[in-house]
């Protein structure tokens, strides 16, 4: 291969519940979708392995409940994995160590310096009663900034770049529309210059023109900052617009993976075919 992945994920596994004799064997689980009818354990993510390359947008599609958000939460350390590995190759002291096994302090360092996250629900990513500038300053402080004047000007530049008008920057996001809240989240996620950005359903629930706006912004970030991104969406149109490569998930598993146009025009798996053809 001619380039190194920036993030390698291996056998990421997340289950809710202890498992039982019927569902514990990874090669022979008796599940209804992702659920064991015998003991009630949910297998939200099963042995997910993939690579993210520098500057690329990797799309994740799959129906509701397929495990997309759970995977993102595990990667961002919002939830603890049941088992699995992830490696970040970004020339710092924890490179090539399984980040899921690092101390919580080291994980916090990665969150503050290597990762940005935009949540499906802005409530999870923003303090709705803080000002927008304050929201960004919070992340900057976590990343080690102390100079108030600097932080304020950085926040302003970022908010400007996501088209939040200057006169509204001191306002709290609770007053903003959904699209504006998502743009504040994106500004916040970018504030520590992360090499890796996670975006979970960022355009879901936005009307089409606002959606186009946010998509443009994401493309621009990729082009101009070269940030690697994982973009989760159940909307194939969004994936088609943004992603270079795409992973298809079903019942907590990766069932297909390929170039985005190939996934859409020559899907291999029965489920992907159903997903694609039902859209056409």
């Amino acid at each position, binding site marked *: *291969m*001619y*380039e190194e992945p920036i993030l390698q994920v291996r056998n990421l596994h997340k289950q809710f519940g202890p498992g039982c004799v019927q569902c514990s064997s990874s090669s022979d689980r008796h599940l209804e979708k992702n659920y064991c009818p015998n003991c009630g354990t949910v297998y939200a993510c099963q042995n997910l392995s993939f690579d993210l390359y520098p500057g*690329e947008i990797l799309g994740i599609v799959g129906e509701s409940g397929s495990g997309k958000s759970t995977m993102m939460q595990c990667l961002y350390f919002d939830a603890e994995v049941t088992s699995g590995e992830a490696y970040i190759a970004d020339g710092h002291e924890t490179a090539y160590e399984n980040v899921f096994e690092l101390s919580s302090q080291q994980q916090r360092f990665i969150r503050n310096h290597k990762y940005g996250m935009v949540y499906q629900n802005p409530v999870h990513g923003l303090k709705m009663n803080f000002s927008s500038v304050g929201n960004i300053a919070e992340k900057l402080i976590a990343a080690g900034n102390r100079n108030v004047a600097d932080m304020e000007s950085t926040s302003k530049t970022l908010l400007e770049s996501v088209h939040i008008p200057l006169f509204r920057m001191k306002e709290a996001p609770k007053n903003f529309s959904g699209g504006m809240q998502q743009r504040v989240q994106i500004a916040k996620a970018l504030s520590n210059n992360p090499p890796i950005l996670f975006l979970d359903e960022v355009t879901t629930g936005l009307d089409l023109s606002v959606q186009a706006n946010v*998509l443009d912004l994401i493309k621009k970030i990729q082009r101009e900052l070269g940030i690697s991104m994982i973009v989760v969406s159940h909307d194939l149109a969004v994936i088609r617009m943004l992603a270079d490569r795409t992973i298809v998930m079903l019942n907590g598993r990766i069932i297909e993976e390929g*170039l985005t*146009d190939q996934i859409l*025009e020559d899907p291999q798996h*029965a489920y992907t075919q*159903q997903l694609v053809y039902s859209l056409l």
Partner: protein
Amino acid sequence: MRMLEIGDFGKRFTIHHLGQTMHAVEHIDFSLDKGEFIGIVGKSGSGKSTILKSIYRTYLPDEGKIIYNSERFGDIDLSTAAERQIIYLRKYEIGYVSQFLNVMPRTTSRQLVEQALLEMGESEEVAKAEAEKALIHFELDPKLWDTYPNTFSGGEKLRLNIAIATVKKPRLLLLDEPTASLDHQSKIKVREIIEKLKANGTTLVGVFHDIEFMEGLCDKVYDMKTRQLVMQAGVVSES
């Protein structure tokens, strides 16, 4: 110098919900040298687009080989190359033009051409200048430069498409029915565009249903029916 060599290529489609597998094409062999222009002819459904899309890897090839001589990777089999290599080649070496324009919505013609260059890492000034040159070169009316292409005519869309694909100066350009549904005048323009590309040394694979139109321009013609290369006038030898 050999640019592309297709050997015993075949492609099947399995449609799961119908429980069917069909061979779209099989046993395809042809090759072309740098700077050559090969035309593929055959009736509708004979698999012409399937071949082009498999070279570009929009379709996943499953039989035979597609050896491409890359500037970056040397000889590489496109049917098995890593996805990231394909993404690199699409960015820097191989272009694809269909009669459909498949682009970001609400983006102007000018921006679309500029983006292709920005993605390659060109500066904004270079992208702006080169984009304008390309739009002039392919004779897109300046009135259309700052408008959205969704309302363009077939011919205008096509010329924009060609501008987007060629502004990156691909070494290999795949053209899928660039003259379909165009009026005679627009077809002549497309012919002129292809002449210009050829003069610049671009290697071309084109699919045409009215190949007569490309008479004298193609170096070789591959006939889907006979699975043979037919030589065009003026070409002495094919290998």
